[in-house]
């Protein structure tokens, strides 16, 4: 059996007295779409922070693509192919949409100590960037400044920026946050198209999305994994139903 693309073991992080991650173990195979769900305060955003490298764990290890990245800095992890989107949109607000994506392409194409040529005229940066914009349906808005884009468009751009670096693993932190019904549906359709090409770890609140997209689901409660498996098994799991689905879904299932 091949080694999983991402292998998390015993990952632990406390903030003061709160245990945000309690010995989390998680495997993600290449090509799968793995969702992490859990009620508010379950430690989902902490998990993304730990995986992206913004938060240092107290214990445990993260292996990515066969190497230990537990102590590797954020930008190095990104160079290794671990890209992310942010829950609260985090873009270069005074750049155009295309410049945002082109900078991500540039980041993956070696160092940027080039001081003279006009970077906006380099096809090697612009063309892949336009493709990424096209992939999320934003090609028509390429030259609009980010702060002029609608919230939905900014969410799409988040994905395009993450995709532009041709990542091996895409960490998606609540991509549906703040989207209306139509926009959500478009986003789900887009992510479904991406499935298979890119391995995804999807953190999401919205159950419909999760069950529509995920190959496997991990349920997090108070920083602990209480269940992990394919959607049907998770849906049937008693502990999950009690701890999480209980409040909203138990009556309907």
């Amino acid at each position, binding site marked *: 059996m091949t080694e999983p693309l991402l292998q998390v073991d015993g990952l632990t992080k406390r903030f003061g007295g709160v245990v945000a991650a309690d010995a989390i173990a998680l495997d993600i195979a290449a090509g799968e779409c793995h969702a992490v769900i859990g009620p508010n305060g379950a430690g989902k955003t902490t998990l993304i922070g730990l995986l*992206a490298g*913004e938060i240092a764990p107290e214990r445990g290890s993260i292996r990515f693509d066969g190497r230990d990245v537990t102590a590797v*800095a*954020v*930008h*190095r992890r*990104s*160079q290794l192919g671990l*890209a*992310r989107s*942010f829950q609260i949109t*985090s*873009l*270069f*607000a*005074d*750049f155009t949409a295309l*410049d945002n994506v*082109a*900078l*991500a392409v*540039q*980041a*993956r194409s070696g160092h*940027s*100590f*080039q*001081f*003279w*040529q*006009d*970077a*906006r005229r*380099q096809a090697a*940066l612009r063309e892949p960037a336009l493709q990424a914009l096209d992939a999320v349906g934003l090609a028509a808005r390429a030259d609009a*400044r980010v702060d002029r884009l609608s919230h939905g468009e900014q969410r799409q751009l988040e994905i395009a*920026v993450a995709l*532009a*670096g041709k990542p091996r693993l895409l960490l998606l932190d609540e991509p549906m946050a703040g989207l209306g019904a139509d926009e959500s549906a478009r986003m789900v359709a887009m992510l479904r198209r991406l499935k298979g090409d890119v391995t995804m770890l999807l953190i999401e609140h919205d159950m419909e999305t999760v069950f529509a997209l995920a190959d496997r689901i991990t349920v997090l409660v108070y920083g602990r994994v209480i269940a992990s498996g394919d959607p049907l098994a998770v849906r049937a799991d008693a502990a999950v139903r009690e701890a999480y689905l209980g409040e909203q879904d138990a009556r309907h299932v």
Partner: protein
Amino acid sequence: MKAARKAFGVPLPASWFTPRAALPALVLVILGLVPVYAAATGDPFALTLFGRIEILSIAAVSLNLIMGYGGMASFGHAAYLGIGGYAVGILWKEGIASGFVQWPAAIAVSALFALVVGALSLRTRGVYFIMITLAFAQMVYYVAQGLDRYGGDDGMTIGGRSSFAGIVNLNNATQLYYLCFALLLASLFLVWRLVNSRFGLIIQGARSNERRLRAIGISPFRYKLVCFVIAGGLCGLSGALLANHTNFISPAMMYWTRSGDLMVMVILGGLGSLFGPLLGTVTYLLLEEALSRVTEYPGLFIGPALLLVAIFMHGGIEGLFGARRRD
């Protein structure tokens, strides 16, 4: 006709000549014609005033590179003016009058100082960065005060301008003026190329959203440091020019209020716009000059004017023409 077009490569877009482009163009044309005016009227003062404007514009252009484009608000930029000036003055005092030695030394020492300051300061953020750059500038200020041999607190008159082996003669006021003018144009061109290059986009990305920059795989520190060093060297050159222009160096040229003046010029003109620092410097120095002719108390008007600009004019003078502010 077709061939002529081809010779130009890309045809200029129709929107090129906008009010926003017209103002800096006009300013540059006027700056280029000042010596003609001075020769016609026999009034050398215009050369002195506008020469000073050009030199400080270079310093402002350099500050704008880090502060406007890179988001690194240095409150110690006058230190580089001083270091550049002292490099010229000290070498002169020690018998080395050649500009081919003095000026590269001015640039190199300033750049080196910027390297040290940047390496230590770029770890801090926001107001702390403003203050630590100020602290380093104050250190240089006190060092200069302690340089007894080079005038100490009182400063030192430089007995001769940098010599360039007959290529340009800086003792000729017009030649000195046009050299400053050429270097101003060159520094604008340099910054224009820089900020649109791959390097420049990283720098602006770091200003805009450092967290995102890391997330796409770039640690901004090295880029910011290099940018800081380039700006330091450019400002050092401006200091070398200033020493030649006034024939005088003193610690006062790097007192913190001088750094404040430079910041004012850049913010007044418009942060992160190419010609903003030029417009800001011209406006600030001409306003000072004009007011000091009509009133004994120019500060009574300049001060409130700056306050009003801070309150009402987002984006400075360039902002008036639709340039977007980059905070």
